[in-house]
C-alpha cells in the first residue's frame, strides 16, 4: 500500500476525513435529535440510542493512518502495488469499511448483580471433603451465559458459582484468544499508573476488553480509571479514531467533565465535534440552562459554544481564549 502511504499531507487527510464522514451513511443527527427528543422527553437517552451513537461516531473521527498504523511485529519484505485512480478509490472505500468494523464501540453496561443462589443443602456431606468442587456443564452448543456451573462446598451446600468462578471455568474449558485464566497483574490499580505514564491507554483498554466481560466490576473500574487519567492530563487525542473514544465521551458527559475535551477540540479546529459534544450534553441534561437557551434561540456553531461556556462550564476563560485564537486563525487564513 505505498500509494495509500503517500496520503500524509493535511489536505488529503482532510479530504479523506470528509469522504469518511459522508460514507458513514448515518442520518444527520439534528433531524434525529428533534424526533427522539420529542418522543422520549421524560426517558433519559441510553448509550445504544441511534442519535447518541451517531454523535459519538462523528466525534470519534476516522483517521485511516492511525487505525491501520504499523505494529511492532516480525518484519516481512514490503509489498508494492500500482493502482489507477479508480482502483485507489475502491481500495480506500474498502479500507474505510474495514476501519468502521474495527471502530465498533464496546457496550457500556451497569455492573452485573452477584449470583448467590443456594440450590441444595446436604448436611450428610458435611466434613467429608476438604476442598470445594466446581461442576461445569461442558455441552459444546450452549452459549456461555446459559451454562450451568455449580459449586459444592465442604459443608455440603450446593450453590451456583459466582461470576468470577464462572469466568475462570469457562476460560479453562473454552479458552478465548487474549484472555488468561488469572488476569494479569497490570489490572491492579498500583500497576495501572505505570501504564498511564507510558501513554499506553489504548493498549490497556484493548487488553481489558480481551480479558473481562463488559458488565464485570473490573472492566468498569479499569475503564473509569483510564478515562479519569486522560481527563486529568488532557490526553484526549490518544483515543481519537479508536473504538474507546465513544465510551470516554459518554462517561465525561454523564459526569459533566466536558471542559477539557471541549478546549482540546477547539484547539484542533474541530468545531463540528465541539457542537456535537454540546448537543449530546443537552440531550443528557435537558434541564440545564444552556440547553433551554439553545432550544429557545436555536443556536448553532460558535454561538452554541459561547452560551455553553458562559452557563455550564467551569473553565470559561480558557474556552473564550481558545475560541478567540480560532477566530483569529480563521480571519488570517481567509484574509491572506
Amino acid at each position, binding site marked *: 500500500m505505498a500509494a495509500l502511504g503517500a496520503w500524509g499531507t493535511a489536505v488529503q487527510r482532510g479530504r479523506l476525513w470528509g469522504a469518511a464522514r459522508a460514507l458513514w451513511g448515518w442520518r444527520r443527527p439534528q433531524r434525529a435529535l428533534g424526533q427522539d427528543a420529542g418522543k422520549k422527553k421524560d426517558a433519559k437517552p441510553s448509550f445504544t440510542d441511534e442519535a447518541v451513537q451517531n454523535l459519538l461516531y462523528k466525534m470519534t473521527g476516522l483517521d485511516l493512518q492511525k487505525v491501520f498504523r504499523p505494529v511492532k511485529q516480525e518484519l516481512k519484505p514490503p509489498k508494492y502495488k500500482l493502482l489507477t485512480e479508480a482502483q485507489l478509490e475502491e481500495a480506500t472505500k474498502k479500507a474505510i469499511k474495514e476501519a468502521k468494523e474495527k471502530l465498533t464501540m464496546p*457496550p457500556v453496561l451497569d455492573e452485573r448483580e452477584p449470583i448467590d443462589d443456594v440450590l*441444595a*443443602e446436604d448436611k450428610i456431606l458435611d466434613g467429608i471433603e476438604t476442598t470445594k468442587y466446581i461442576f461445569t456443564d461442558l455441552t459444546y452448543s450452549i452459549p456461555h451465559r446459559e451454562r450451568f456451573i455449580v459449586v459444592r462446598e465442604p459443608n455440603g451446600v450446593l450453590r451456583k458459582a459466582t461470576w468470577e468462578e464462572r469466568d475462570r471455568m469457562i476460560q479453562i474449558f473454552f479458552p478465548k484468544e487474549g484472555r488468561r485464566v488469572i488476569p494479569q*497483574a497490570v489490572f491492579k490499580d498500583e500497576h495501572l499508573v505505570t*501504564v498511564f505514564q507510558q501513554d499506553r491507554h489504548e493498549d490497556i483498554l484493548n487488553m481489558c476488553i480481551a480479558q473481562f*466481560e463488559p458488565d464485570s466490576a473490573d472492566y468498569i473500574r479499569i475503564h473509569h480509571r483510564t478515562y479519569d487519567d486522560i481527563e486529568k492530563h488532557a490526553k484526549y487525542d490518544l483515543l481519537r479514531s479508536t473504538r474507546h473514544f465513544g465510551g470516554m465521551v459518554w462517561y465525561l458527559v454523564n459526569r459533566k467533565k466536558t471542559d477539557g475535551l471541549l478546549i482540546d477540540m477547539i484547539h484542533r479546529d474541530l468545531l463540528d465535534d465541539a457542537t456535537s459534544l454540546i448537543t449530546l450534553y443537552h440531550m443528557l441534561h435537558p434541564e440545564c440552562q444552556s440547553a433551554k437557551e439553545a432550544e429557545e434561540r436555536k443556536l448553532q456553531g460558535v454561538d452554541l459554544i459561547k452560551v455553553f461556556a458562559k452557563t455550564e462550564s467551569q473553565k470559561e476563560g480558557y474556552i473564550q481564549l481558545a475560541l478567540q485564537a480560532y477566530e483569529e486563525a480563521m480571519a488570517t487564513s481567509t484574509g491572506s
Partner: protein
Amino acid sequence: MALGGGLALLRAAAGALRGPGRPLWGQGVPGVPPSRPCSAEAPPKPSEPPSPYKEKPWEYLESAEYQEAYGDKPVWFGYRRHHKGAVPPRHTRKACLRKGKRVGNPCPICRDRHLFVDFRNVKLLDQFICPHSGSIFHPTHTGVCMKQHKLLLKAIAQAQDHGLLWLRIPFVPVPQDDFAARPPAVGKTPPAPQLTAGRAWYPWYDWQQPPPDAVARLRRLYKDYLRQEEGGPAPGGAPEAQ
C-alpha cells in the same frame, strides 16, 4: 644421657603448655587460616562481598562504572563464545557457575557481578529484546548461558505482566452477546421450599415416626430380646441426638 635430655625437652614442652592449653605451634590469629607455605593445594581465594546493587539492580545501569564498562552498547555487545570449530553449537552452555566454580569466559550477565536479571530493571531486559520486531533474541545471538536465558524469559514475562515492558496485544472484536438477558444459569432461581421454610433438606434428616406395621413386625421378631418396661419408650424409637 639421651633419656635425661628427652625428659628435659618434655618438661620444657609441658612448661610451654601453661597457656590456654594450646601447643606453641598451634597459636595464630583467629579467623585467618594458618599459612601453609609447603602445601601443594592452591591457597583459598577470599570470598567477594555481596554486590551493593543487589536490592536495586536498576541503579547499576545509571552508574559511572557501567557507563565506563559498556558505554551505550548493550551488555552482550562484543562478547565472543568459545567453542571448537567454525560453526557454534545451537545452544549456549548450560550454566556459567558449575558446582560453585566459574567457567572460563563466562557469559555477558554472569561475568558482571553487579548485573541482576530482575523484572524491575527494564533497561537491562530491553537490551535482550529486538527493538524492531519485539521478539526476544536467541541465546546464540547474545551469548548468554541457558540458565540466564531462562531467567531472562521469566523476568521479561513478569515485566510485561506488570505493564513495565511493551507487549503486543491481538485485536479482540467486541462481544456481541445479549447482556441484558438473564438465563436461569446466571439469574435468580427461587430457593427450594425446604430452605425457605427452614426445614431439613431431606425429610429423613429429621426423625420421622416409623410406620406402625414395621414397628409391630420388629417387635414380633425380637420379642424374646425386648426389655421388659412398663410404659417406657418403645425400642426403635427416637435415636439419641447426634
